[in-house]
């Protein structure tokens, strides 16, 4: 979230969606602070994005990867890297269109 404003007696905010700024209604998340992230859907902030939870989840995923490296079958790991790379490429191509098409987005600041 970038800044807070008031319009027609409604609590609003300007939020940055990866470079695109949009007005978002804050009535359901009135205590959201500048620099925090939120789940935004059709112009409404519906839930604060909990950064600590996000980091914890990513940490868990990293641990799973390390465990597999230590105990897993290296041939299987090599085979799995093929489609994973392709996924990254497909993502770059489809990314922008799909981000716009999905109704929900995790907003940047």
């Amino acid at each position, binding site marked *: 979230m970038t800044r807070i404003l008031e319009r*027609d*007696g*409604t609590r609003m905010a300007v939020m940055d*969606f*990866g470079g695109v700024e949009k007005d978002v*209604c804050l*009535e*359901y*998340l*009135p205590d959201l602070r500048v620099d925090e*992230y939120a*789940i935004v*859907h*059709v*112009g*409404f902030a*519906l*839930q604060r*994005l*909990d*950064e600590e*939870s*996000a980091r*914890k*989840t*990513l940490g868990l*995923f*990293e*641990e*799973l*990867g*390390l*465990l*597999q490296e230590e105990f*897993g079958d290296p041939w*299987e*790991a090599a*085979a*799995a*890297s*093929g*489609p*994973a*790379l*392709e*996924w*990254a490429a*497909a*993502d770059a191509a*489809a990314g922008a269109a*799909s*981000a716009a*098409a*999905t*109704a*929900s*987005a*995790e*907003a940047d*600041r």
Partner: protein
Amino acid sequence: MKYLAEFQNPDLAKGLLDDIRATVTRPWALMEVCGGQTHTIIRHGIDQLLPDEVELIHGPGCPVCVTPLEVIDKALEIASRPEVIFCSFGDMLRVPGTDRDLFRVRGEGGDVRVVYSPLDALEIARENPHREVVFFGIGFETTAPPNAMTVHQARKQNIRNFSMLVSHVRVPPAIEAIMTSADCRVQGFLAAGHVCSVMGTAEYPELAEKFRVPIVVTGFEPLDILEGVRRTVRQLERGEHTVDNAYPRAVRPEGNPAARAMLEDVFEVTDRAWRGIGVIPQSGWRLSDKYRDQDAEHRFDVTGINTCEPSACRSGEVLQGLLKPNECEAFGTTCTPRTPLGATMVSSEGACAAYYLYRRLGTPAANREASPVG
């Protein structure tokens, strides 16, 4: 955008996939409830990366797809009136009604406008005090709070030329309907994360217990889906059936209490027909008595609607997870996103549209053979 790319990291997907492979010992059928999740799965080929034992069945969580034909026909009728400005989310415009769609209405001179948010429709009402502005209020528990707030604001700001055509739906009664249907193969659910961001998780333990199915609240990025699958498979292999939250960065057990309170005030629970599925008891919301005068169905007396579904369309079976989109004879031939027979081919959350967009044109077996993992 923060915490999007991080949850799409292919390197981290490997660890999750390996853990699922190491855990699974026999076949399991999981349903992802939400159409947004279906799109992530098909776009990233997650169904093809998973071990053969894990099947993903696509659920009915596409709000555009399940909006009943009768309501679409009412929308078409209201939108055709000269005094009306009819506002809607974009993907409703190509959804086929009995004999046309909202695009056709616009082509015939109707004032049909696409908006990003229901608040945009309220703004249009403010700017056009001599016109009737109607917003098409559809969606699950994620979209219902924004629509409820807009009705509430219209009342508060005394904008009298604004009304809403409401056809909201709720996830838990749909899970109940799926589990009690005779053809049900579902053994575990990836619950829709953003629905739970609003509603919390309190509605789900009863369902998990009653049907002895694990229900794992799941997000929308590829790693979120894999984590939802991993946790569901783990429960199934252990013979457990609890509610688990694999999307804690956006879901708290209590959801968003302010949004839930607004829903309670503006809407009331009602039976709702789901397109292609049929009536599911207590599965919808309509405007409560207090807000009845802002109900477009009440304000515009729409009668004489005779609905008729195209017979070639099997979207009902797709929505219930009984048929994969590319198993339908019409898929990609007489039915495409430009000339859709059913809403599942139109919506950005429709399973048929996902299969078409990401080129799953052949049979599932052929696709599996053609995939790089073999």
